[in-house]
């Protein structure tokens, strides 16, 4: 595989895995934030939004401190025999997950809050267990929120590069993703290559987004057959 395609592949892999991981861990957090009345709810909601506030490189720097050989997390991963996370693909995923958390949690929390309590009650009287209710009622009713969360997370992971650069170290074939590559091309005045990559990324993203929205619109308007 040529280095360019390797970069593209790495990027999609990172964005895909990050989005998946965030959907899995963001959904319960968002649900809890939307439904709970625990006193910790508001502080947790505020903490979830915090990664946004720091400049990515700075966040990356602190993650580096934390996950490096002398950081708390780093010490932990080392005693677990996992080595340290920075400069590995796993480290990239962890960093992206932290940085993109708000983009997943906030839209989900929003739509979860609008799901009519009555619908859950109805489902309960129709024998659906709490988990069943979540999958058969909440998720379908919250679909637009899931779409938004996934799009924001995926796109953000594609475009994000401050954290990735810091934690990943821009190692070709290992942690060098598209955004970093484009950044490099711009930095080294290789504008032609930068235009090509940036243009390709835009066109590709546009097509994917358009397809997603079209499918979503179709699902919303059409009569369901089951």
């Amino acid at each position: 595989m040529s280095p360019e395609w390797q970069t593209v592949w790495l990027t999609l892999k990172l964005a895909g895995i990050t989005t998946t991981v965030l959907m899995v861990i963001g959904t319960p957090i968002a649900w809890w934030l939307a439904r709970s009345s625990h006193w910790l709810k508001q502080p947790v909601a505020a903490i979830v939004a915090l990664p946004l506030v720091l400049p990515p490189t700075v966040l990356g720097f602190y993650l580096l401190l934390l996950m490096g050989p002398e950081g708390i997390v780093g010490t932990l991963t080392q005693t677990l025999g996992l080595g340290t996370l920075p400069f590995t693909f796993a480290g990239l995923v962890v960093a992206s997950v932290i940085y993109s958390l708000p983009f997943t949690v906030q839209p989900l929390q929003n739509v979860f809050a609008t799901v009519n309590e009555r619908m859950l009650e109805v489902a309960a009287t129709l024998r659906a267990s709490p988990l069943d209710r979540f999958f058969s009622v909440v998720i379908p009713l919250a679909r637009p929120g899931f779409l938004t969360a996934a799009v924001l997370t995926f796109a953000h992971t594609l475009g994000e590069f401050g954290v990735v650069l810091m934690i990943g170290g821009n190692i070709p074939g290992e942690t060098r993703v598209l955004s970093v590559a484009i950044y490099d091309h711009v930095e080294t005045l290789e504008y032609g290559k930068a235009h090509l990559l940036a243009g390709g990324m835009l066109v590709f993203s546009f097509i994917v987004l358009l397809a997603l929205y079209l499918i979503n619109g179709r699902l919303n308007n059409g009569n369901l057959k089951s």
Partner: protein
Amino acid sequence: MKVPGIHARLSTGFERFQLDVALELPGDGVTALFGHSGCGKTTLLRCIAGLQPCTGRLSVNGNVWQDDDTSLPVHKRPLAYVFQETSLFPHLSVNGNLNYGYRRTPMAQRRIHPSQVIDWLGLSHFMDRRPERLSGGERQRVAIARALLTSPRLLLMDEPLSALDQTSKREILPYLENLRDTLDIPIIYVSHSAAEVARLADYIVMMDQGRVVAEGGIQETLARPDQPFALEEGAAVIVPAVIRERDPQWHLCRAEFDGGSLWLRDDRQPEPGSRVRLQILARDVSIALAANHNQSIQNLLPARVMDMAAEQRPGMTTVRLQAGQTSFLSRITSRSAHQLGLGCGMDVCMQIKSVAIVE
């Protein structure tokens, strides 16, 4: 050992409202829940369903659903609930709504099947449609069907027929009666319609401001001339009877009860020998001193005045009459009672319009 019936001692409350009820309801048949707007009917149903947190004890036909330490979660209570405001899933078609509960009912427990209810409730035309595209009455019918398809062991219905016209009601009521008789499950039914209640109910609970103010079997309760029910226009007695003969030419049949016979329309063409319930509204019973056969009222029965009570609304008197072992109620003006010189123990002729008799 299983204790049949519904035993409930439940308390809950809101800022300005307190519900405290202790009920012993029969384990089968229809219990009608009555009372003014805001008296706590919906809250009581929600407590029974487990939707509203409450304290106390609840057992249904021997199964404890709630007591001091445990409370069965809603989805583990084998009940169905038709909500006061229809609450179909907006993301599912009618078909999807119907199947939602059906699919979650274990195969072995299914006693009602989609094709049946679709037919009963006339849903076949819009099985693929989303709820937002249905009329109010159509939505209500789908909600009833969806609830029935879980083959519940207790059915809670909060004004299920309020959005339906007379014809639809007339089509659906027999099925509810049928359900009551064949499924052998208790139904708790909130309704403001005296006609519906008198037709369906076996047991009546009257609530006011969060408490039960009266309860009892429909026969005893309705035959009390001082009954507190806000039925008035709907006051009636229920008389068990047996069909004895049919007159196909005039579409009539004769039902015999303990104390005489009554002619009624044979809409449903019951077999001679079959048992029926006759409902006789107090307003359809008038009193004559002697039988006069030259009139359109054909059911003329000798009876004895048992007691008389003035109604809440002035000017009216409810008279309890007895024919054989059966009680009847008659609502007449107090002036008539006076002019006829009615008094306890007097023998009179009871005039019952045959058209007023329903099963």
